[in-house]
């Protein structure tokens, strides 16, 4: 069975922008705030459709987040959208106090996550946001794997009460799911079945996990591939079941391994099913300029790295 590709490459931002306009049409309480990136992140389409409900607040992200919080406190569902470095790191204590602590309906949607931002370099390559956001009480953290799932995150975020952080890519990514597929916050999705090892990926790394599963299959290793679009709350039953049934896990993320999805998965399975876990991701370092695929290769975010890690955990398991 072939798991991987070829896939259509599509923009998550385009799906995001369209989904937001459709949501705004269905729900008049949806408002959007922006920080001089509305064209790039496609929230400008929402502003064209609903000029009174998009607030352009300039390069002032802390203010943007607090304004979103105030709008939410008065009953709105406020989407704050910009690049992930600005929407998470630059605003962190505002998100903490005005959004998470206050438990408001603010949905922070950020593109330009991870190394695949490319030539803009390390200042713009946010490899630490998942860890920052999953550390906040009450915060739901989403990492959609592709365009359709990004669109579904918009609807799902609006339908749950409380704060949500969602991060996705600047670059086009392989479309792995369809708009007809199920998507629920808190649910992990098995993309490929297997019983020898589990590969858990999020974002652009889900496609790399599927490619790695193909390589492993040729070696007779049947890898289960799980797409983990909700980092918090984790789908505990699906992950624990995978640990029990396959006995080894490799995680893959376009994010630092210090406190990302690997850390989340490992700290879960250590409770009841302490199987060996290997983490593929950005090591404890900053990125640099380059094309997206060049960067993913240089920093070890490849199917080959996942295959190596899989062989490694299988060896550790049999010791």
């Amino acid at each position, binding site marked *: 069975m072939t798991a991987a590709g070829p896939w259509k490459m599509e923009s998550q931002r385009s799906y995001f922008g369209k989904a937001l306009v459709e949501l705004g049409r269905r729900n008049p309480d949806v*408002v959007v705030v922006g920080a001089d990136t509305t064209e790039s992140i496609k929230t400008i389409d929402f502003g064209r459709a609903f000029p*009174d*409900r998009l*607030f352009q*607040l*300039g390069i*002032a992200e*802390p*203010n943007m*987040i*607090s*304004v*979103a*919080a*105030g*709008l*939410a*406190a*008065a*009953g*709105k569902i*406020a989407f704050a959208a910009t690049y992930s470095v600005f929407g998470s790191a630059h605003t962190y*204590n*505002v998100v*903490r*106090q*005005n959004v998470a*602590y*206050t*438990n408001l309906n603010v949905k922070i949607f950020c593109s330009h996550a991870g190394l695949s931002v490319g030539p803009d370099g390390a200042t713009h390559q946010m490899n630490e946001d998942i860890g920052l956001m999953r550390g906040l009480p009450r915060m739901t953290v989403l990492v959609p794997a592709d365009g359709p799932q990004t669109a579904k995150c918009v609807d799902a975020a609006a339908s749950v009460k409380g704060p949500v952080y969602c991060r996705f890519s600047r670059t086009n990514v392989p479309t792995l799911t369809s708009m007809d597929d199920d998507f629920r916050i808190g649910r992990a999705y098995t993309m490929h079945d297997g019983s020898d090892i589990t590969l858990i990926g999020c974002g652009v790394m889900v496609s790399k996990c599927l490619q790695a599963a193909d390589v492993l299959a040729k070696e007779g290793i049947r890898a289960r591939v799980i797409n983990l679009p909700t980092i918090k709350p984790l789908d505990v039953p699906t992950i624990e079941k995978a640990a029990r049934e396959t006995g080894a896990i490799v995680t893959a993320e376009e994010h630092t391994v210090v406190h990302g999805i690997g850390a989340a998965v490992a700290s879960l399975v250590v409770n009841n099913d302490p199987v060996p876990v290997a983490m593929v991701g950005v090591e404890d370092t900053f990125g640099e300029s380059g094309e997206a695929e060049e960067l993913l290769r240089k920093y070890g975010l490849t199917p080959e790295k996942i295959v190596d890690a899989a062989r490694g955990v299988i060896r550790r398991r049999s010791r």
Partner: protein
Amino acid sequence: MVDVSEETIRRLKKQAVVLRRHIIRMTHNVQSGHPGGSMSACDIVTALYFHSLNVDPKNPDWPERDRFVLSKGHACPVWYAALAERGFFPVDELLTFRKIDSRLQGHPEVGTTPGVENAAGAEGQGLSFSVGLALAARVDHKSWRTYCVMGDGEQDVGQTWEAGMAASKYGLDNLTAFIDRNGIQQEGRTEDIMPLEPLAEKWEAFNWHVLNIDGHDFRQILSAIEEAQRTKGRPTVIIARTVKGKGVSFMENKIKYHGAATTDEELKMALAELESQEAAL
């Protein structure tokens, strides 16, 4: 000048003494908290909660209520005292302030304290939050207003000025901000820590309608609130000159009482002084 009776002014003055007594007792009881900035803002908060604000203590979440945002969250003793005296929760509860299992947290928390609209503690977020509230009222064509009380120390914070630009961009005439200009922040005089003057000119340059008042004169406070309500097309900031620790002579204008409670001996002196103020009214 606003048309209010002598009787109203006397009632507000008496109410402010009651709130100051609560502030002294609450902070003394737990030997922590921030009495100085609570007492400087006390007359502003009294004027709002006991004259101007359209709120319903029996229905704190009433959608049509005016919103009061305390950006200088460390001054929450005055907020809690006002809410309790207005009937949002029992006055007895005030002495649970800062204690374990209390609904009255050391800095304001939304959802636990009836009537508290915003979390604050990290300075400089309240005006932005107020801009969001005011924009929501505008989108929904609602007539309720938003009042935000800031400290002068908060004028150091960049986000305060981000909010200032946003409020004037959107011409938020349903937003009124107060600056409790007591001239003292945690480590010293504001003009030594980070000079703010000319402060009024800064806000004018940000296209706000600026009013300068004596923040302990109820006629001036009420007049300024009325003028803000009448002002169209721009938000209003009321720079209220105040005295840190106002109402207890040995605490007035002392940096120490930004974040220090009274001793047992000082408590007696403070309460006696407030007692005689009340009697004189």
